[in-house]
C-alpha cells in the first residue's frame, strides 16, 4: 500500500477525483484519520468526480447527506456520512449505509472505522495522516478489484 502525498488542498481534491474514477455502484469508502487531516476536502473531490453540482460540506450534525450525481457509470447518489458525533453503534446500523448503496449509489463515510464490522470485507479505505502540513493518503482497494494504478506516482 503506497501513500499519495498532498501538499495543498487542491492536491487532496485531485486525489478525491482520482478515486471517484474507480468507483462503481454499491461501493463503500471509509475515510479514517484525525480531525483536520483532509477528509472533507477529499470528499469534495470525490463529489466533483461523480458529477455532484451542489456544495459539499461536512455532514457532522446530519450524520448523512445524499447528493444527486450526474455521471455515466450508474452512480445516481453519493451518500456522504460522518460518524464523528455518533454516540452508539445502533445509530450507525440504523443508517443502513451498506444497504442504501446497493442499487445505484456509493457511500463516503468519514470516521468510518467506527462502523468497521458493518461494512464487511468489500470496501475501500483511505487512511489520512498529517506529516508536517503534507497530507499522506493511503488507499486500500477492495478485494477482487483492479489495483489503483497511478494513485501514488
Amino acid at each position, binding site marked *: 500500500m503506497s501513500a499519495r502525498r498532498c501538499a495543498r488542498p487542491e492536491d487532496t481534491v485531485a486525489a478525491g477525483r482520482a478515486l471517484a474514477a474507480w468507483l462503481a455502484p454499491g461501493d463503500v469508502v471509509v475515510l479514517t484519520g484525525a480531525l483536520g487531516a483532509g477528509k472533507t476536502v477529499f470528499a469534495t473531490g470525490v463529489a466533483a468526480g461523480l458529477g455532484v453540482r451542489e456544495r459539499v460540506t461536512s455532514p457532522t450534525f446530519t450524520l448523512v447527506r445524499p447528493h444527486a450525481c450526474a455521471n455515466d457509470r450508474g452512480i445516481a447518489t453519493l451518500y456522504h456520512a460522518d460518524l464523528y458525533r455518533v454516540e452508539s*453503534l445502533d445509530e*450507525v*446500523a440504523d443508517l443502513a449505509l451498506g444497504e442504501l448503496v446497493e442499487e445505484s449509489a456509493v457511500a463516503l463515510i468519514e470516521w468510518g472505522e*467506527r462502523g*468497521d*464490522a458493518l461494512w464487511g470485507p468489500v470496501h475501500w479505505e483511505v487512511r489520512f495522516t498529517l506529516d508536517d502540513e503534507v497530507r499522506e493518503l493511503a488507499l486500500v482497494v477492495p478485494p477482487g478489484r483492479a489495483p489503483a494504478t497511478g494513485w501514488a506516482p
Partner: protein
Amino acid sequence: MILSIETATTACAAGLAGGQRSVEALLASDRRHVEVLVPGIQGLLAAWPATLRDVSRIVVDYGPGLFTGLRVGVATARALAEATGAELVGVTSLEVYATQAAARGVTGAVVAVVDGRRGELFAQPFALGDEVEALDAPRVVTPRDLAEHWAGGASPVTFVGDGAIRYARDLGAVPAATCLLVPWPSPVTAMAIGARREAAPVHPLYLREADAVANFATRSRP
C-alpha cells in the same frame, strides 16, 4: 388464526393459517417492504375472509437478513400485536430455510445461508433428521471461508437459502455439496414453527452488531 410476516430478504411476503388452511403471498421481490407489507396483509385477510380481530398470533421473521426490510417487518408485527392483543412470536430466517429443506426431504447436514450483503453470508449449520436441530449459532462468514470449512468433510452437505443463489459458484464448488435454491423464507413454514413456540418480545437480529459494539467501545474518541 396466525399471521406471518417475512421481510428478511429483498422479498416481502406474508401468510395466514387457521383451521386446516394456510396461504402465503409474495407481495414484492424488490425491497419495497414499507410500501407493500400492510396493504398485502389487508389483501390476504380480505381474501380469506377474516379481519385483524381474528388474528391471535403473529409470527415474524426477525433475521438475520436485510436490515432495511427487517425493521419494517418487526416494527409492523410489534405494532399489530400491540393493537390487537395477539401473541408475538419470532422465528429466524435461517431456521425457516432449514425447515424448508427438511420439508423437501433433505436429511443430514444442512447449512442455511442468507445473503448478508457486502460480500458476506449469515450462516448456520443444522442436522436434519426427525427434527431440525441447530448445530451452532448463526454467524457472519465470507462465502469462501464457509466453502473452505465444508470442503474438509467427506459427507454430503446441502446449502439452502437466498445466499446459496447469490454464491452458488463458491458454495457449489464444495465436494458433495448441493445448493437448494430457495429465494425467500416461506411464511407458511414460519407459521408451522411459530405455532409451537412461546410468545416473547422480538427485536431484529443484526448479527454484525455484537462485533461492532465491541469494536465501537474500544475505539479512542478524541
